C-alpha cells in the first residue's frame, strides 16, 4: 500500500492503495467516485475517460501511483453548486445522454476539446470524440450538445435548432 496524494476535482486527497490499482479502480472503489464508468478495462472503448492534468486519458490504463500530485477531473467535478456545467445542460436538454453510461466520458473529452478549441467544427468534434464509443445515440445529439455548449461558453446566446428537437418538416 502506498499513500498517494492527488488533486481530485480541485481537492487534495491522500489515498492508500496497492500499486497495481488503476486510477479507475482508485476513483471508483477507494474514493467512491462511481461517476467514472468502465466498459472493457483494456483501453478499447473510452468509457473510463477522466482528465489528467487537463488531458482526457483512459483511467483503466493509468496506475493510481503514476498520478501522484497530478490533477484529476471526473464528472463529479463538473457542476458547480446549483449550476450545471454548460455541457451538462446541453447534454440534458438535447438528449445526448440516453442510457447515460458513456456520458461522463463524453462530457470530459468534450470539455477538454472546448478548452483547447473554443470554436470546434463538427469535424473537430468527431475527431476529438473518436476514442469514445456510444451505442445509444449515434453521436449526433452529442455533437449538437457540444456545439451548443461551446457557443454558450463563448458567450453566445445560442439555442438548439428546431430540427434537433423536433425533426425535419
Amino acid at each position, binding site marked *: 500500500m502506498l499513500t498517494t496524494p492527488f488533486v481530485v476535482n480541485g481537492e487534495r486527497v491522500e489515498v492508500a492503495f496497492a500499486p497495481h490499482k488503476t486510477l479507475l479502480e482508485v476513483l471508483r472503489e477507494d474514493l467512491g467516485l462511481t*461517476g*467514472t464508468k468502465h466498459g472493457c478495462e483494456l483501453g*478499447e472503448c473510452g*468509457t473510463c475517460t477522466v482528465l489528467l492534468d487537463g488531458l482526457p486519458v483512459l483511467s483503466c490504463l493509468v496506475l493510481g501511483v503514476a498520478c501522484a500530485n497530478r490533477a484529476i477531473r471526473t464528472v463529479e467535478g463538473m457542476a458547480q453548486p446549483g449550476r450545471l456545467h454548460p455541457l451538462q445542460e446541453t447534454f440534458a436538454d438535447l438528449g445526448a445522454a440516453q*442510457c447515460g*453510461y458513456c456520458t461522463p466520458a463524453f462530457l470530459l473529452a468534450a470539455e477538454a476539446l472546448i478548452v483547447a478549441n473554443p470554436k470546434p467544427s463538427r469535424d473537430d*468534434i468527431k475527431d476529438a470524440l473518436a476514442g469514445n464509443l456510444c*451505442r445509444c445515440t*449515434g453521436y449526433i445529439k452529442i455533437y449538437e450538445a457540444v456545439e451548443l455548449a461551446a457557443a454558450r461558453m463563448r458567450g453566445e446566446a445560442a439555442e438548439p435548432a428546431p430540427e434537433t428537437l423536433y425533426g425535419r418538416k
Partner: protein
Amino acid sequence: MAGSNHRVIGKALRKVDAVAKVTGATRFADDLALPRMLYAKLLRSTQPHARILAIDVTAAARLPGVRAVLTGRDLPIPFGILPVSQDEHALCLDKVRFIGDPVAAVAATSEEIATAAAELIRVDYEPLRTFASAEEAVANAEPRIHDYGDRGNLHKIVDLEFGDVAEAFEHADLVREDLFFFEGNTHLPMEQHAALATYAPDGKLTLWSSTQTPHYVHRALANVLELPPARIRVIATPNGGGFGGKSDPFSHEIAVAKLAMVTGRPVKITLTREEVFYCHRGRHPTLMSIKTGVKRDGSITGMHFKSLLDGGAYGSYGVASTYYTGALQTVTYQVPRYRFQGARAFTNKAPCGPKRGHGTPQPRFALEVHVDKIAEQLGIDPAELRLNTLVPRDSLTANYLRVGSMGLGTCIEKVVQGSEWKKKFRKLPHGRGVGLACSSYISGAGLPIYWNNMPHSGVQLKCDRGGGVTVFCGSTEIGQGSDSILAYIVAEVLGIDPFHIAIVTADTELTPVDLGSYSSRVTLMSGNAALQAAERARELLALHAARRLEIPGDRVVFADGRVFDSRDPDTGMSFAEAVQHAEAAEGTVGTVGSYTPPMSPGKYRGAGVGPSPAYSYSACVAEVDVDPATGIVRVPTIWIAHDLGRAINAAAAIGQVEGSVYMGLGEALMEEMAYRGNRNVVHKIPSLLEYKSPTTLEMCDVVTYLIEDPDPNGPFGAKEVGQGPLLPVMPAVANAVYDAVGVRVDEVPITPEKVLKALRGKGKGEAGRVGPTRFPDIPWPEPVRVPPPWEA
C-alpha cells in the same frame, strides 16, 4: 406538436433522469457496494460441446479469502425465458454447450481472489462433436445438443400457409426467388452486466441487476432457488444500454443470489467484456429464401419465405425469434397469399435471442432488397412500387395481423423528397448511389411470454397533499426514456410539471408488474396504464374540486399546476389544494391503471407471435460512396422518416431514431459475431477492439422526419420508436451499394471484401453478386393451412 393543445406531450423536454445522468449520479449496478460485500466470478467452459466428467473445486475452496464455491449440483433446477425452452442451468449440470457456458461460481473477499480461485477449479471434459453452423446442425441429428426440440438438432420447425401460394405464383407475371444471409451480431451495451444480491437473516433475498426484465428474473429466481416469490425482491438498476441483451434471466444473477444465501453476505458480480459476448442473446445468423409472384404493376400475388436461424446453444427467446422472421413480412405491402417456413437450429455458440428488432431485421433485409430487384426487373421506381402496394390502414393481413394506423406512405414521400431521390436514383456517378427501404415493427407483443389473462403493465399512482405525485410502475429504464414517458403522460393528464412527479420503477417489491423493456412495448403499454391511472386520479380530484368551486365536473380543467374553471380560469385552486380536498373527502388519494392488449384475430397455432396493438412504420434512403478500388463503403447521409403515431417527447424520439440508424449502420457495414472455424468454435473477437462498433468517424449524418399518424391503441396515439427505425437501414445501404456500383451483396454485413469480390466477378462477366447460393433441405412438417381472411 402542430395543432395540439398539449402542454407536455410532444414537447422536447428533458428526460426526468437527465440531470442524474449528466452528473454521474445515476447508480448503475456495478456502482453499488454494500458493507461486507463479496465478489463473485464465474468459471466458464473452455470446451464448445462436452460432457462434464468431474469438477474438482478443492484447491479453489482452500484459497484464502474464498467464501463459497458452487457447481451445477447446487442449482439443479433448469430455467429459461420461454416456458417451452426451460433448457438452461445457472451452472452447467452434466454438459457444456458452448465456450463461455458457466460451469462454477466462486465468492471471495476480492475480485482478484475470486478470479484466482476460479482458475484453480479443475474440470474434466469428454469432448463431443461440435456444430459451428445451422447447416451442420441440420445435416447431423446426432449428437443432440439438447434432448428436446422438434427433431435432431433442430430446436423449432414452423410451416404456415395462408392460401395456396403455388397457385398465386401461376397468376403472376413475374416470379422471382432470392437467397440472403444475415450474419449474427450482438447488442454491445457499454455497461457490462452486473448484479448484486443480499440475503437477509429473515430469509429475504434482494437482487439488484442490470436487467431489462426484472419480472422474469423474479420468476426465475423463485423457481431455481425454490423460494416463495414474496420473499424475493428484484430491482432493475438503470441499464447502461440493453438493446435486448439484458432480457433473459442470466446465470450470473442466479449465482450471486445463491452465493449470498450460502455465505450470508452481499455478493456482487460484474461481467468482463468478454463474458458479455458469451451472454449474447443477439441477432440470429439467418439464411433466407424469398420467392414472390408479382403482376406487371408490382402488386404481389403471393409470397413464400423461408428462414433458417442459427440459434446457438440455448433456447432463449428462439421460438419467438423463429416466428418473428416470418410474421411481419405481410404488414407493409399487400401479400394476398403467404407461406412461411422457419427453422431454428442449436449450435455450439453463444445463445442467440432478441436484439433490437427481434427476428425481423433479417427478413426485412431480405424483403427490401428482393423488392428492389423486382422493381428493377419490372422497370418501376422502387419508391413508386412500394407506394402502390401499401397495406391499407385498418385492415387484416393474410396471417391475421390487425393493422391500425399506417403512415408508411407519408414516410416514403418524406424521404424521397428530402433525399432528392428522383434526381439521384440511377443517376449519380459511378461509386455513388442511393437506396430505399421500408419497415414496420410492433409496439409490444399481443401476448405475454407465459400464458395468463392478467395485464401486461400496471401503474399505481399516489397523490400527496403537498401536490407531489408518485408513479409506481414495473417498467425498466434502459436509456430509452421509459421513466420520462410515465412522467410526461401523468403530467399532461393532471396538468402538473413532469419534474414534480416522482417515478418509482422496476422494483418487484414496490411496483406493479410490467413485463419488461422488450418488444418496444413500454411506451404503449405502461403509457396506457399510466394514462388510465392518471385519468382516474383526475376524475377523483375533479369531483371534489368541482364541489368546492361549485361548478359542474365537466368544467374542471387541470393545467399549469392548477385546477380551475374552464369558463373562469381565475376561479380555481392549486393542484395541491385539489388533492387536499379529495383526501379530506375520500382518504388517501391513490389510483391504479393497467393495460392488456386487444385480443388478436388469429386463432391458428403460431398466431401468438406478430400481433401487436399498433405497428410503427419507417422509410429510409441511404446515400453511399463506394470505392471501386477497395470495396470500402462509406455512408455520408441517411434520411429516415418514422411513423410513431405521436411523439410523447420529440427530442427523445429523434434520439431513438438516430440511435437505431447508428446500430443499423454498424450491422450493415461491420458488426459480426464471428467464430473460428478451424479452432474449437471459439468466438473470434470477443472484445470492444475487434468487434467493430462504429465510431464518430463512421457515423453518418441523419435527417429525421417524425411522422405522426396517431393510433387509437396508443397513449395519445403513440406507437413505438425504439426499434423499428433500425430495420430499413441495412437494406437501404445494400440497395444503395447496387445503385453506386451495380453489384449485389445479398449478405450482411456488407464488407469491403464482399463488395470487391462482387465487383471483380462483374468485371469478369459474372453476375456481380455475393451471397448464399443454396438453402438446405429441412424436414418441414405438414404446413398449418389457414385461409387468409378474404378466402375464409
